[in-house]
């Protein structure tokens, strides 16, 4: 089917037509370029600031940095070492990786059950999980904090520091699962029925079907949920603030950066470098896997 996209660019025939086209389209270009500039300037300004010495930042605007090259990496060195952002970056990673893999695994298992293994009340339970998708985090913060204290899920065990993160891993897992189950189940259900039936005829168990057929065929869907969850957990401030701010050595970057602000006031040489340390990894993940991210967005919104 021909779509609007393919029909849009019309080749102008003659020179005069081209001139008319240019004049009528100038406002269009103007608007689009202006919007692009407005969307770029805030980030670019902070990026340039992060490479300028503090004395320059205080005495002249970042736009002067474009013409007077006097750039340095000192700000990054300071925040990573003196302000503990290096450690906080590692904490962010320690929190994010299990909190992404756990809901991905549990979600895929459950989604397979909902898609391909019949059992009583399947649709009712699935609808209940769809309903849970929009429960605000705020309704769980207090009870979870109490639960984690009672069950010692936010303290190190056996001399292993990472055990202190079990609580926040589980909290993020619980909040990611409804979306994971919803997205993955909707994807799994589109897999060819014949293939799965054939494998079952050959005596493959449910788990073998899941592992050998469904998972390898569902890499795009798994990737798109994985990216969502990764970005969500890495960028999360609220849960980390509630569950981890009591212990400075366990704070991730999102919690640590606002402390910079409250201790020193807006010291932009530190804030700018810290902000870009925080943004770096998600931007790399995002650009590397943008295709999956957009597919997931559309699957989660338009197609559902």
């Amino acid at each position: 089917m021909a779509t609007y996209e393919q029909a849009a660019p019309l080749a102008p025939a003659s020179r005069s037509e081209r001139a008319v086209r240019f004049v009528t389209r100038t406002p269009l270009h103007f608007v689009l370029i202006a919007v692009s500039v407005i969307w770029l300037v805030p980030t670019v300004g902070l990026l340039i600031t992060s490479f300028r010495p503090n004395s320059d930042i205080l005495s002249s605007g970042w736009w002067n940095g474009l013409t007077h090259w006097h750039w340095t990496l000192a700000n990054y060195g300071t925040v990573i070492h003196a302000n503990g952002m290096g450690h906080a970056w590692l904490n962010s990673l320690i929190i994010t990786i299990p909190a992404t893999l756990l809901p991905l695994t549990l979600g895929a298992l459950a989604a397979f059950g909902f898609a391909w293994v019949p059992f009583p009340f399947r649709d009712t339970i699935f609808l209940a999980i769809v309903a849970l998708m929009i429960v605000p985090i705020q309704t769980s913060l207090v009870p979870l904090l109490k639960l984690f204290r009672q069950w010692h899920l936010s303290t190190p065990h056996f001399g292993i520091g990472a055990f202190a993160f079990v609580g926040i891993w589980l909290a993020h897992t619980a909040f990611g699962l409804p979306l994971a189950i919803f997205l993955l189940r909707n994807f799994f259900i589109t897999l060819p029925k014949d293939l799965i039936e054939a494998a079952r005829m050959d005596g493959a168990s449910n788990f073998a079907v899941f592992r050998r057929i469904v998972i390898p065929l569902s890499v795009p869907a798994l990737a798109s949920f994985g990216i969502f969850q990764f970005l969500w957990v890495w960028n999360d401030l609220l849960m980390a603030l509630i569950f981890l701010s009591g212990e400075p050595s366990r704070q991730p970057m999102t919690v640590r950066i606002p402390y910079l602000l409250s201790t020193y006031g807006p010291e932009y040489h530190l804030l700018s470098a810290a902000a870009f340390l925080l943004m770096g990894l998600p931007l790399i993940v995002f650009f590397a896997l943008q295709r999956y991210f957009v597919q997931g967005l559309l699957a989660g919104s338009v197609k559902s």
Partner: protein
Amino acid sequence: MSQAIPTPPVAAPPPVEPVTGRERRSRLAGFLFITPALIVLALFLVYPAYYTIRLSFYQSDFLFNFTHWVGLDNFKNLLTNDPDFLDLSTFPPSGSLVNNVRWVIFYISLSLVFGLGLAVLAVRVRYERAVKSIVFVPMAIAATAVGIIWLFVYSPDINQGVLNALLHAFGHDPIAWLGRDDTVNYALIFAYIWASTGFVMVVLSAAIKGIPAEIMEAARADGAGEWAIFWRIMVPMLSLPISIVTIWLFINVIKVFDIIYVMTGGGPGTSSRVIAFTMYYETFPNLKPGYGAAVAVIMLILVLPVMIVNVRRFRSERVIT
């Protein structure tokens, strides 16, 4: 998608067919697949929500115990006796609930207008991909970093804040955008729109590209102008994706917290607090968990219609298939 959905097993299994051992095992297997997820959801999502709802009827202490039953007093105080939450005696009304209404109105409408406008315009130029990438990138940036980025843009120091530098260049005095209670909310809302427009644009852009070309061509052949095509064809055909995006923006706006925590801490005074900020403030710094739980319950009530719409839509989809 329609043919792939397996028939629901519970829907009237023919009585003649005996339940074989294999089928019984398969039923058990189904539960095995969903059990780990159900346990996590029950313990860390459903039980806490129940606990919070119960807590909202109590006065609590810093250990979050159900210390003292107060019935609906927390809700009554919030809505009638707490000017930081809702104050209708001033003009314009103030408080975090009112601020959140501001957010709902301006954040949702402007994100939609910008997102739809960009989607419609960008499809007409060769550098569409570049424009879309630029607008979409803030989606990946943490609200904490968005906060720092915009704190810098709004800085009252004309050597730092690009906005006040521009004002200064035009001979205007700098404005402390985040320090005045009449501008702070709009400044925050704009920063958040900057971060969300990309989402709206990408979803609507995909939907626009799905509109059959024949419809557009037929309209053009009948002499319809671009404006008429936009309002009479595109907007009606996009009504479903627009409503889905609106729901997403609504949920986002009810939960907005990070950017306010980073940029203003709810200030100056209490003038940029929203519901989620009040929930945080009352529960933790102010140590009134029962009162904070009541705020959380109000948030839950506000998103409840969305939950119902989602479940309904999903059900009707199943009926069609």
